[in-house]
């Protein structure tokens, strides 16, 4: 079923909206959740939360890119669950690893006032659009989808070393870009 038709089902408050979403994007949601939570039960819970959130959000929202919209919701919910688990000393450490890596992108400017969210996001978008396609996709798979280096290498049929080098280079470039644009986090 086309995305527009599924969205229409949400607007009609038809419960088949959920089953159609699950049929088309269930595996997609589960992969994102599992990449973050590394636990099947938690991922399933996150997937169900995603459907509930979709049900409550559409309408009034009518997402122009339904797949990315679902991806964002799943990712945010999974990160929230991860935070709860971290407080309870649970968790697989995959997020910690990604956070450590992202620390390399932060400019050194402790005294500066943090930039607004919208400004940082805009800057991120321009940075990502300036990258060669493959480097950009590797970066997004790692830090949006939270895929491991091995999974990314398999996905793009590349060496793991090439993926690591690409990520390292992109992180370095992002730091320089933030510094140049005077973005502080």
């Amino acid at each position, binding site marked *: 079923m086309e995305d527009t038709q599924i969205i229409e089902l949400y607007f009609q408050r038809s419960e088949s909206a959920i089953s159609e979403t699950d049929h088309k994007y269930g595996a997609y949601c589960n992969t994102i959740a599992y990449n973050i939570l590394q636990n099947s039960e938690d991922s399933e819970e996150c997937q169900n939360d995603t459907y509930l959130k979709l049900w409550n959000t559409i309408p009034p929202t009518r997402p122009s890119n339904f797949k990315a919209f679902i991806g964002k919701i799943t990712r945010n919910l999974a990160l929230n669950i991860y935070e709860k688990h971290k407080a309870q000393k649970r968790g697989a450490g995959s997020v910690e690893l990604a956070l450590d890596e992202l620390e390399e992108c932060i400019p050194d400017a402790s005294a500066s006032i943090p930039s607004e969210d919208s400004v940082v996001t805009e800057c991120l978008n321009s940075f990502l659009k300036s990258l060669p396609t493959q480097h950009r996709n590797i970066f997004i798979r790692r830090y949006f989808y939270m895929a491991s280096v091995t999974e990314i290498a398999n996905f793009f049929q590349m060496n793991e070393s090439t993926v690591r080098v690409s990520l390292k280079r992109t992180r370095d470039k992002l730091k320089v870009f933030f510094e140049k644009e005077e973005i502080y*986090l």
Partner: protein
Amino acid sequence: MKSERLMDLISEIDPELIESADIKPTKKKAAVSPVIISVLAAAACVAIIVSVGYVFLNSRNNSKNKSFDNQGITWNEINSDNKNPASAEPEKKIDVKINMVDEYGCNLSLIVNNKEDYEKYYTYGDFVLHKQTEDGDVLLTPKPIDKTKIQTIVPATDDPKGEGEIIPYIATSKEPVTLDQNETSVDIVWGYNYGDLEKGDYYITVDIYDSENGTIIQTEIPFTVE
């Protein structure tokens, strides 16, 4: 932590970018119908017949101008009109030629067929030395490199995921590897500075990045230290 904020904000990036990163790349494959295959096969047959005829006639016409060396192994073309035969090979924009590779280092040439394309699109390359073991690949940590044009060394990251894998020092070039005027190739001399390598099977991967298409041209150079 500031990185947590960055992680949250990555959720808000452009949906188009998110979606495009989830599209699995497929190897470019031309969809060729059986009819086209038949036509191409017929064309190839005609081309072969014409070529054989051409060579036959040419050999008769030019036999006076060709001389074999005294070993009868090679021959020298005297008639310059016969140079530059049409090549069926598609032109590669960039190629890696191995001049020498051993346990101490290697000497490679990047051969460029179209200088403008090279300078516009091929901006940097990675050169990594791998050792093959029974357990799979082990990436070594050589300390490159003797060539001024290849400038940067990315330091090792020690086993970040606890998987027993070590990221090597990698010779890279942050600045474009440029060609001088009229040059069509650039030599890369890489001394591993690692002492001599132990006996075993190794290979070097050379990744050249094509910034036009966002793709990587990868060359693998296997060699054995005995």
